[in-house]
């Protein structure tokens, strides 16, 4: 079974992030790494391909400046090949434009039956790209998968909900977004790190994808970031004098947060 994993390359969260005052977006000119939330998808894909008795895992990514370090990490984990779309015209592309580009890149992967994504990226957090990709590709989509099995051309998913999980099934091909707990990502072995350098990594431009240049980039989104401001400073907490009703107040507070 051939599986595509959408793999976002993001600035290292361990480094302090910065916003570009000109573009009002995250600076991405430094080294990019594989988004940790996508490692779960890569691991799940590797396990599903193995369980299916074979098949290739292909990483698909869109990143500036032909950055490939994050993709190499995914290849070192065991993915067979990667497709990167990188083009100066893609700077400023919004979530829908990104989905168009990724869907076009996925379309170039032979025999892709299952597309895995994270629920959302760790730097942008729009959480909309997986469903947009599914809609563009005309595939069904399942979100928030906490476990995935594939049997006889059907994918069986336990879908995380607030209260527990739903059991969902869907015929292949389809798009599934996986939560962080779905599997434990493996560490790339030394041999995997060495092998990753020689695995195929196709680099495409916007023109190669066939996506209309007018629907991506700064102008294509139909949206504009008009201002960025620091988050307001955290306010002091509420202090109650415990007159015997303290427990009730704590319970009510936690209930409000849906913790109890």
């Amino acid at each position: 079974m051939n599986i595509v994993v959408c793999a976002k390359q993001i600035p290292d969260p361990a480094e302090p992030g910065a916003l570009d005052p000109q573009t009002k977006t995250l600076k991405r000119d430094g080294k990019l790494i594989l988004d940790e939330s996508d490692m779960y998808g890569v691991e799940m894909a590797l396990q599903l391909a193995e369980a299916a008795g074979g098949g290739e895992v292909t990483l698909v990514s869109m990143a500036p400046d032909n950055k490939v370090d994050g993709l190499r990490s995914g290849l070192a984990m065991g993915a067979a090949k990667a497709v990167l779309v990188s083009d100066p015209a893609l700077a400023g592309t919004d979530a829908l434009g990104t989905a168009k580009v990724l869907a076009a890149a996925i379309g170039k992967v032979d025999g892709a039956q299952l597309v895995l994504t994270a629920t959302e990226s760790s730097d942008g957090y729009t959480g909309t790209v997986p469903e947009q990709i599914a809609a563009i590709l005309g595939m069904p989509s399942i979100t928030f998968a906490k476990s995935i099995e594939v049997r006889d051309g059907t994918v069986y998913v336990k879908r995380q909900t607030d209260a527990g999980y739903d059991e969902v099934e869907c015929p292949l091909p389809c798009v599934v977004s996986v939560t962080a707990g779905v599997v434990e990502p493996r560490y790339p072995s030394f041999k995997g790190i060495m092998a990753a350098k020689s695995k195929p990594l196709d680099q495409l431009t916007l023109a190669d994808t066939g996506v209309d240049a007018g629907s991506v980039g700064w102008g294509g989104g139909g949206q504009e970031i008009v201002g960025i401001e620091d988050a307001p400073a955290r306010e002091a907490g509420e202090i109650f004098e415990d007159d015997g009703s303290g427990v009730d107040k704590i319970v009510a507070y936690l209930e409000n947060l849906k913790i109890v």
Partner: protein
Amino acid sequence: MRFAFTDDQLAFAAGLTDVLAGECPPAVVRAAWDDRTGHAPSLWGRLGELGLFSLLVPVERGGMGGGMVDAVLLFERLGAAATPGPILEQIVGAGLLADESLANGSAVVTITEDLAQPVAHAAVADVILTAGATVREFATTPAPGLDGGRTLAVVSGGAVSDNDVDADTLRDHMSLAISAQLIGVASTMIDQAAEYARARHQFGKPIGTFQAVKHHLADALLAVEFARAPTWRAAWSLDQGLPTAPADVSMARVLAATGAQRAARRALQVHGAIGYTWECDLQLWMKKVWAIQAAFGDTSWHRRRVSSWLLDGDGPVTPDGVTMPSFELLR
């Protein structure tokens, strides 16, 4: 000529750093102390999957065919995490014995120069490597030791087989590994002390703003940085089989050991009384420095080897193989 670590070597070091960050936090080091094994089997399994133990094993024996230059950054990272268990011994021993069960981590090896003395990690080892002899199926009796991540045991009995590892090779390879490990251990202690100096306030400001504290940390960092390049060089000399290799290894070892000693003392000084306590992680790293000081030649032995190489008739020998005038002639 590009005289620097390759992308692969740096990627291995980064990969190992990730594994150790996830799998070998101080809690894991403490657990290995607390259960008195000085060993973390789960971490061991992870490091085996990584391929760490096969690094120095020849390719034809299922290994990666690497050398000490490939390993030196990894030894440093293992030291930085105060990794418990005979991991340096496993990497070096698997390479010297070219053994597949050691390369994949299914068997555990430790290394000693003297079976009559308590042997580090013997209680968790399947195999003990000494110069000329490999021992299996031995019995162990725990002996008191300083570093809970490196337990000692008296070894008795065992089935002995010959090997072709000579004493100098064993001492040089382990000394180099320990030099790099000490640099890693020292780096973490400096980080811990610097972090403490930022967090601990006195007279209304962080103690790290006081010049005397800064100087302590700067001195320690200087000593450790001073040891790093000679250690890398010694790894290169060993891999190249240069006649200077024994002296280069001893030079590295002297600098790494004195640097780590200084880092331990200064880190303790910066921490103040809390640095002595069991709860403070610093002690786990400090005791490792003290425990491995004397293994495979103590600092004075290595210093004497450098001095005899410099001053005696046999040397020094340049990398080109030209013998320089001896000390006697110079005098």
